C-alpha cells in the first residue's frame, strides 16, 4: 500500500497514470452530460410554476456545486502540500483554481440568465448569488497571488496558505451574507430556490451533477499533468515523454 502510494507520488509515474486516467473520466462525462441534457431539456416535465424556464437548473446547480467543491478540494490539497511538503498536492491545487473559478463564473452567469425571466432583473442581491460572487473573488485572489510570484515554489506555498485562510472564512462570509440578505429582503424571491422538484426532474439533475463532476475531474487531471511538467522542468524523465496530450 505504502509502496503504491510512493510510486504514485513519483512524478514520471504519476504523469503516465494521470494520462491513462483521463479517458476514464472524459468518456463517461461526455455520455452523462449528453444524457442529462436530453433528459433535462426533453424528458423531464416542465415545472408548473416556471414552465420550461426552470430547466436552467440543470446547468446552474451543477456549476454551483463544482464552484464550492473545487474550492474545498483546492484548500485540502493546499493543506496537504503545506503539511507534507508534497509538490504534487500543490500542482493539484494549482490545477483546480482556474477550473473552479470558471464554474463559479458559469454559476453566476446562468443564475443571471435564470434571474432575468423570474425576477425581471439580471442581478439580484440574493444571498446565494452574493456569496458566489465573493467566492469568485476568493478564487481570483488565489490565482493572482500564485501568478505574482517569480519563484513558482514560493507562489505555490503562498497561494496554498491563502486558500486555507479562504476556506476558514467561507462559512463566516456565507453566514454574514445570508444574515444581511434576510434583513434587507423579504422572502418573496425564493422562487428561484426550489421549484418543487419531482423525482423525474431530480433524477436528471443528479445525472448532470455526476457528469459535471467527471468533466471537472478530466479537465483538472489534464491541467495537473501540465503543472507536474512545469514543476519538473529540467528533470531527465521528461525527455522520454512524447508530445501527445
Amino acid at each position, binding site marked *: 500500500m505504502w509502496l503504491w502510494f510512493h510510486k504514485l507520488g513519483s512524478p514520471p509515474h504519476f504523469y503516465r497514470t494521470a494520462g491513462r486516467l483521463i479517458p476514464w473520466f472524459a468518456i463517461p462525462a461526455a455520455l452523462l452530460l449528453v444524457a442529462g441534457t436530453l433528459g433535462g431539456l426533453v424528458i423531464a416535465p416542465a415545472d408548473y410554476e416556471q*414552465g*420550461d424556464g426552470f430547466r436552467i437548473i440543470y446547468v446552474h446547480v451543477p456549476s454551483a456545486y463544482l464552484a464550492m467543491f473545487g474550492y474545498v478540494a483546492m484548500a485540502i490539497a493546499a493543506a496537504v502540500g503545506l503539511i507534507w511538503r508534497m509538490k504534487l498536492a500543490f500542482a493539484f491545487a494549482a490545477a483546480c483554481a482556474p477550473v473552479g473559478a470558471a464554474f463559479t463564473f458559469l454559476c453566476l452567469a446562468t443564475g443571471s440568465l435564470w434571474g432575468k425571466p423570474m425576477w425581471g432583473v439580471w442581478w439580484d442581491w440574493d444571498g446565494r448569488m452574493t456569496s458566489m460572487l465573493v467566492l469568485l473573488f476568493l478564487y481570483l485572489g488565489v490565482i493572482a497571488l500564485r501568478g505574482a510570484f517569480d519563484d513558482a515554489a514560493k507562489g505555490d506555498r503562498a497561494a496554498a496558505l491563502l486558500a486555507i485562510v479562504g476556506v476558514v472564512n467561507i462559512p463566516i462570509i456565507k453566514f454574514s451574507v445570508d444574515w444581511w440578505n434576510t434583513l434587507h429582503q423579504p422572502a418573496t424571491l425564493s422562487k428561484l430556490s426550489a421549484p418543487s422538484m419531482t423525482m423525474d426532474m431530480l433524477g436528471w439533475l443528479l445525472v448532470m451533477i455526476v457528469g459535471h463532476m467527471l468533466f471537472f475531474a478530466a479537465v483538472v487531471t489534464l*491541467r495537473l499533468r501540465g503543472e507536474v511538467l512545469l514543476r519538473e*522542468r529540467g528533470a531527465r524523465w521528461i525527455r522520454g515523454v512524447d508530445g501527445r496530450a
Partner: protein
Amino acid sequence: MREFLLMDGYWAYVWSSWALTLAIMVWLIMAARRHHRRALLEAAQETEAPLPARAAVKELS
C-alpha cells in the same frame, strides 16, 4: 419541435445558458490542452539541468 425550441417563451434564456455552459466547457478543455502542450514545450526547451556541483570540505588546519 417548434414548441420544444420555444421553451414556453423562455427560449432565449434556456438556450443561451446551455450555450454558455457548452462554450465554457469547450474553452476549459482547450485551455487545459494548451496549458499541457505549453508545459511540454517549455520542458523540452529547457536544457537538462546541470548536475549539481559537489561541495568539497577541506581541513585547512
